């Protein structure tokens, strides 16, 4: 049951071989046993989850079950869910119980999926190791001395450890793909605007995008079918026709042209990751694909551009956390300014404060043109690189992360080293393109390696096809961490 695909789970639920309540209880029991070690969840609410499961069972009993009806899904704690504590990994929201549902949450609710719990994450999604969470670091199920990646590390660890059937994540600079790679699961960041941001707590609005995290590309397609769609409450939501993202899964890959950006296979890439990715590319050749050498010359500027634009937007987005209306307020203060200062000084962690300060600085009078405007210009050049590249190839591949999972605490003192962990993923967000990561073997210390697949705008169905064909030919994605009991 724990290794079943979402399609299989849906079938057994609709055939009433198992009830949603039984399935949900099974996962809740696993969480009760294993979460203390992995810390993948911030909040579980068995009562609420089981109530949803009972409703799903009633729908299933009427024979009205849909693809995900009754299936327990873990939700990243960045999505507001009505009646659920929603912390965004921060002390600032330690007591915030959302009075409303995010679009993603209501999409899952409408299809009858069960909210299994809220997963741990880097505070306000700022981090690449899940160590910035106020609720403690998440441990990598493959080696609990190592990080799961971030910011959607709780979701990645929960999927890898079979603490949920699937999960959601968000990706601003790699926060779905990098933890997916480090935990050996599959994750997809859709084209910017495909999934509504309504109710998803904003980090950097022009980069944030929600997406599914699961054990296979096939599962991702089913999840994305539920998550995607136009939402008038998000002005940046794209008005596209609904599509079935699973429609092309079975297409053969004959003639597929894979672009390999030479910048992604250069200095900084660790050899074990390079080897595993190379082996995966070789597998694709066997499946009928060809390889094209491409260049993304401006991608080397991704990290500096990102660390101007994302903090700029974040510094403004996080201004609402002021202790006035909800969330953390310092217990003692002398006046209004003191209340703001103490509440924010005590409520935010170090990485969040660092980015608020960077963002405030780059937007300030006299620096705006040199930093923010300049970064916006380079952002367009980075996007243009991809447009050029896609004239030569159908899909781009490379490593998701330069290394496998590093040790907890290893990069804690060096933010720049931490930021470099996202060197291959950030350009995709800056360009607004869809990107995904799928398991592609193991590197040193038997830690998982992720293969990144980047498509052109709205190429999600094609990317899922490309990933699915690889997963039919290999079994990396169905490996489970040995030290986690099944």
């Amino acid at each position, binding site marked *: 049951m724990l290794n079943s695909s979402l399609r299989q789970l849906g079938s057994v639920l609709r055939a009433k071989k198992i009830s949603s309540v039984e399935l949900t209880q099974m996962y809740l029991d696993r969480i009760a046993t294993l979460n203390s070690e992995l810390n993948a969840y911030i909040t579980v609410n068995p009562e609420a989850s089981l109530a949803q499961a009972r409703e799903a069972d009633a729908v299933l009993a009427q024979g009205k079950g849909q693809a995900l009806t009754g299936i327990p899904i873990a939700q990243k704690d960045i*999505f507001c869910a009505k009646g659920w504590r929603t912390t965004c990994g921060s002390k600032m929201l330690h007591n915030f119980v*959302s009075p409303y549902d995010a679009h993603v949450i209501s999409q899952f609710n409408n299809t009858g999926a069960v909210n299994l719990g809220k997963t741990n994450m880097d505070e306000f999604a700022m981090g690449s190791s899940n160590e910035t969470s106020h609720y403690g670091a998440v441990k990598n199920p493959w080696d609990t001395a190592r990080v799961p990646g971030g910011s959607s590390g709780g979701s990645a660890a929960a999927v890898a450890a079979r603490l949920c059937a699937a999960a959601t994540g968000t990706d601003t600079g790699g926060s779905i793909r990098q933890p997916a790679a480090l935990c050996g699961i599959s994750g997809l960041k859709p084209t910017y605007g495909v999934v509504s941001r309504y109710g*998803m707590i*904003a980090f950097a609005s022009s980069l944030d995008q929600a997406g599914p995290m699961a054990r296979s590309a096939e599962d991702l397609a089913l999840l994305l079918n539920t998550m995607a769609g136009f939402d008038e409450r*998000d002005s940046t939501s794209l008005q596209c026709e609904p599509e079935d993202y699973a429609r092309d899964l079975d297409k053969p890959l004959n003639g597929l042209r894979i672009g390999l950006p030479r910048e992604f296979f250069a200095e900084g890439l660790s050899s074990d990751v390079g080897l595993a990715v190379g082996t995966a590319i070789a597998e694709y050749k066997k499946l009928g694909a060809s390889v094209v050498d491409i260049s993304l010359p401006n991608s080397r500027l991704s990290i500096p551009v990102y660390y101007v634009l994302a903090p700029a937007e974040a*510094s*403004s987005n996080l201004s609402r956390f*002021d202790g006035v209306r909800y969330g953390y307020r310092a217990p003692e203060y002398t006046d209004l300014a003191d209340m703001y200062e103490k509440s924010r000084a005590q409520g935010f962690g170090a990485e969040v404060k660092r980015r608020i300060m960077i963002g*405030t600085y780059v937007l300030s009078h006299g620096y705006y043109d040199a930093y923010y405007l300049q970064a916006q210009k380079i952002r367009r050049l980075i996007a243009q690189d991809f447009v050029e590249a896609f004239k030569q190839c159908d899909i781009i591949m490379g490593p998701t992360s330069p290394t496998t999972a590093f040790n907890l605490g290893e990069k804690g003192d060096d933010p720049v080293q931490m930021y470099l962990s996202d060197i291959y993923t950030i350009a995709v967000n800056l360009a607004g393109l869809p990107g995904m990561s799928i398991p592609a073997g193991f590197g040193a210390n038997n830690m998982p390696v992720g293969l990144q697949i980047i498509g052109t705008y709205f190429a999600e169905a094609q990317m899922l096809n490309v990933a699915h064909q690889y997963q039919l030919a290999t079994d990396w994605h169905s490996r489970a961490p040995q030290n986690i009991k099944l």
Partner: protein
Amino acid sequence: MLHKTIVRAPEWEIVIGLEVHTQLSTSSKIFSGASTAFGAEPNTQADAVSIALPGVLPVLNKGAVERAIKFGLAVGAHIAPHSVFARKNYFYPDLPKGYQISQFDLPVVGKGQITIQIPSTDSEQGYEKVVRITRAHLEEDAGKSLHEDFHGMTGIDLNRAGTPLLEIVSEPDMRSAAEAVAYAKTLHSLVRWIGICDGNMQEGSFRCDANVSVRRPGTPLGTRREIKNLNSFKFMQQAIDYEVQWQIETLENGGTIQQATVLFDPDKGETRMMRTKEEAHDYRYFPDPDLLPLEIPPQLIEEMRELLPELPDAMRARFIKECGLSAYDAAVLTSDWNTANYFECVAKYSLKDGESLDNADFKLCANWVINEVAAKMNQEGLASWRFGVSDNTLGRILQRIREGIINAKTAKDLFMEFWDIARNSGYQQFGGSPRLVDQLIDERGLTQVSDSGAIEALVDEIIAANADKVAEYRSGKDKLFGFFVGLAMKASKGKANPVQMNDILKHKLGG
């Protein structure tokens, strides 16, 4: 020691520019569906977006954009096909997001202009002036901080947070408080005229900030101080007068003006410092990534142009040119749309059967609307649309005058009687009706006596009964003529055709 009254100092030139915040009359907020109605219990109109819950997003209200376009067209401004919403970042408890969504370097309305009429005073002739509009941009209002009733704490009411505003910025074209007030009044009239703002100043729907500086004529602009939140024309006049005097005295005493923001205290009649330029915020404007750039297609501009009523300037010119009204009457009638429309309807309803509008007695209608109707509304403190007597009723009364059926005195008696009916209903209904006009004329026999035989008989009786006065009149005491008019009118029970009666009296008394 400062003087309360302004002393004209010709060696100083006063320079004033205005920033006016007009609340747009949409029923929901600019970025959410919450109601904008005034006066609700605190925070009952604060939805998730107004409170700025985590994760909520703004969605632009098209009604606000349409109103901004209408304003731009009304001042002959360029409507930007592409404008951008920006975040203005600062912390304040009634600013829930920690930033205000506004427009910065790309506003929706560009350069325009309006013509203002500065009224005559005891010492100066009235004149006309063109004031240039720099720009107008859309933004959201903040909530309100309530400092009373909370025992040393501050209450926050977010009902107003997110109410749409159009901030209208003028060039520093005004040269006196009187010009600034005339500009503000013209703008106030215009935004109500085109139906984008209710203009209610008590409720904060129309709020002015005045940038004031003084300089020696011919020299560069002086340093300005900004007087914030002037919510009445009277306070605007007082505040600017005080500020100008203060700046002139400061400079003449060898001081310098620091750029600053000041508040006007109406109780003391003084401006006082709020913050200096050094204390000003760095708002860290940047384009709001939650909102797409505002693209306005040409069709929408044309749609709005079609919806615009005839503008006050054009209507005033037409009243002068085509209706033959004086500039003063035309200006009074076009001070707001309701009055102007009422006047036009009255003129239409005053026509005799089959008569064309060209032959209307516009002067008669204008006199009635200004001297009777407007005076009455002023006296009763009524809003400009609360007419006690409807346009068709007054039109019928005037029609009967023009037809010679009733005289002016009867007309006025009827009008007053009708108005009282309306007042007694609390102005919930009009007094009288066209039918009632004719019914009362008929029932009460109010038809004026134009039968010269009847009037002559009546005059003969009066002459016979007042031989002594007649003799006095004939010996040169002309003033007695009025005495005879009074007697004759009384004898006719007020119904005599006054022109005819005058002629007959003159003739017979002349003997």
